[in-house]
């Protein structure tokens, strides 16, 4: 079935909402990147756990949670508006 035609350009508020959704979609990608990054640090020789690793992971984790918390209210309030977009 044909989709209703959508406007090509948007006003400022809907534009921001769309970009926020984009950011929310990109967040797990960023997260995956940061959480897989340490794989490239460890040389074969390093066998044991360092406190640096622990701190790195928890900081990344906290940052991701913080970003998700920052996005959530905007996403939630924008829900229901032009949802057919995806």
């Amino acid at each position, binding site marked *: 079935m*044909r989709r209703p035609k959508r406007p090509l350009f948007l006003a400022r508020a809907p534009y921001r909402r769309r970009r926020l959704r984009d950011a929310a979609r990109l967040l797990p990608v960023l997260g995956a990147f940061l959480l897989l990054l340490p*794989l490239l640090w460890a040389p074969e020789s390093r066998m044991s756990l360092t406190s640096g690793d622990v701190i790195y992971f928890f900081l990344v984790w906290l940052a991701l949670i913080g970003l998700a918390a920052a996005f959530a209210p905007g996403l939630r309030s924008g829900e229901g508006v032009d949802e057919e977009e995806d």
Partner: protein
Amino acid sequence: MPFNLLVLACFLYVAFLFTVAFVVEGRAAKGRLGWLRSPVVYTLSLSIYCTAWTFYGAVGYAARSGLEFLTIYFGPTLVFIGWWWLLRKLVRIGRRHHVTSLADLISSRYGKSNTLGVIVTLIAVVAATPYIALQLQSVVLSFGVFASAAPDGSRPLDPGQIAVWVAVGLAFFTILFGTRNLDAREQHHGIVTAIAVEAVVKLVALLAVGSFVVWGIAGGVADVIARIDAADLAAWQVAPGRWTGIIFLSAAAVICLPRMFQVMVVENEDEGHLARASWAFPLYLMAMSLFIVPIAVVGLERMPAGANPDMFVLTLPLAEGRGGLAMLAFLGGFSSATSMVIVESIALATMISNHVMIPLWLRLRPGAGVADDLRQVVLMARRLAIAAVLALGYGYYRVSGGSAALASIGLIAFLGVAQVLPAMLGGIYWRGATRAGAILGLVTGLAIWAYTSFLPSFGPGAVLPETVFTEGLMSLSWLRPYSLFGTEAMDPIIHALFWSMALNVLAFCLGSLLTFPGPVERLQGAAFVNVFEGAVGPQRWARGRADPEALLAMAQRILGEEVALTLFQAEARAQGKESFLPDPTPGFLDSLEARLSGSVGAATAHAMIGQLVGRATVTVEDLMAVASESAQLLEYSARLEARETELTRTAGALREANEKLMQLSLQKDAFLSQISHELRTPMTSIRAFSEILTEGEVPPESVMRYGRIIHDEAKRLTRLLDDLLDLSVLENGAVQLTVGLASLQGMIDTALTAARATRPDREFQVIRDLPSETIYLKTDADRLTQVFINLISNARKYCDATRPELRIAVRHKAGRVTVDFIDNGKGIAKDSQALIFEKFSRLTDANRAGGAGLGLAICREIMQNLGGSVAYVPGQRGATFRVTVPLRLETLAA
């Protein structure tokens, strides 16, 4: 710590949970849930992801494999912070389609196929059984820790006995609160709230133990960091494959685990809660894992070499003599185990009863007395299923002997349920995914998982003979469970993940690409994939022939008498009927099915209505008809739109014409009185003077004067009649034209001279551009001159400027010559412009200078006959008439 005290605490804790669940159920029944429906409760209930495996096992995991335990939490974190991708859609679908379980989702998406429901149920049960066994084992182990630590030498309970009691207790609790009623939406407020309480307990317990370890045993954060660096946390080697693989696996599991699906989708009250949970749940996970590493490091330091690291959370406080803290930790672990078992068994019981037991029961007793209350059957099926699930878990625990390390079982269970992932994701993002593809993928995945991961987990020689491990199935070395197709480089779990997922996806995609979906499948596919685009057009029941009474009877069996009657009555009223029985319209059948599927699952509800409607469902032709109907509708509306604009245009033209007609009619009336007047005035004077003359005795000079007057008046009459005659000849097109070459300048000269007779008293300045007038026209010069005379005379008559002037501008372009007569008067009012060329129109009577208003009408007719036109040009300074003539008049005769 006396063992009996522990048992007592345990009982008190369970009693407390019972009370919570009971109170909440009571409030839910009265519809007063209030804050209990808040996002906080939703988020906390999601924490059943953290089972006893997490609570106890994570420390052991960290002690054995370093930071790898974090991957178990990273997967869910990524899924939740990326909720806009998947979870939002999943929850929306779950709510829109009254999904009751994971199996229901898959079966509903693929054409309400019960086969798929059975397969998913099978996978879920097989994967969950060892997991439940694991929880029982953890409880038994933790009891064991206290029992062995008991200094008074009290008789340690038999582990098997403890497991039985725990299993029975859990079954009792679950049956009591999980199968109280058959809700339209499969929600259990009491249980969810109890789970939320347990979530708080386990978090507090773990944080308390962690704080004790960091600040009580070790000397604060800095010291712990130093200890971590100093500790030889065995061989923590980052294995990229395992790291990535387990993150993926845990991400898949958090969506596909039956208990997670239950709390996340089925028990969801409000989609907005998901937004909060998107960061709050990862935060919970982080808090849960914050102290794992310190506990593991300190535990390894402090505890004797042979101590089980899985139990450090308990043994560390005990060893330090902190009985109360150990008790709290024990309750935390107990909470983790019980909440997981409760929700998992509810989720599994829903699947088993909806997809296995009820369909079977309906098949065995097809005509099962209409009076039967199916609700009791369903509830009984649920209860039996819960008991069966727990019995299975207990059985597995007994068989496996409770020896396996906790973590490995957890991962194997994750991998089992992850087999549902391709069918689920494909189902909600890909309309091309078909039932056959889903079945193929699931069966392939299940088989490979069983062969490479589940069955070998019992150990060599237990289920699979030892030779299979070393030489492969049927001595085919490329079929060895841990190195399929010769891939030996991978860790067993990653090996199983790799092959099961790869072949699962392959089979799913190939099957989907090569088969053709049935109509219901296609409908459901569209409804699931496009869930955000509003309702999917076509009805699932094309043309129902169902007997409403039979429908009501069936609905009563599932929903209960009162609910069903209310539903039917409301529908009947909406249809404008007074009785209890509405017409089985497609829309009604649809909503009824949705209502029933909330209780017995989509596949069963669909089959039951299908039986009554007689005709299984919509056909491809129906779908096509709907599609072409909507296309026709679009086309029709486009045509309507076009017709409407056309009508508007026509209406506008008609209105204009009507206005003109009205004015014309008014004018005609005015003219008639005028023409009578025009004719009468000379007639009167002619009659009067001729009477005087006939009376005689008139002086001769008067006779002459009277005679001249009579003559003049007669001339006026003749002129009027001539004009009328002329006009009618011109209008009929019967005019004879004498076409010849003539100079435009000459014609204008003649016209100016002739027109001077009109109001000769006025001084009129004429502005001409003589060079432009040197054009020779092939036309009827006399007629054209007549037009010019008329226009010039009009200007002389009507131009109201004090120093009147007339400009004559000639232009020659593309074979046509235009002559503009522009005066410097006021011009003609806009509303009169349309009328001046009509017969008998005369704008003002003020300057009536003979003529009956026929001049311009005659001009127009002449110009038409000459192949040109005369028009009033608005917007100039004064009145402007434009005469357009062809340079060469082509007569028909010529």
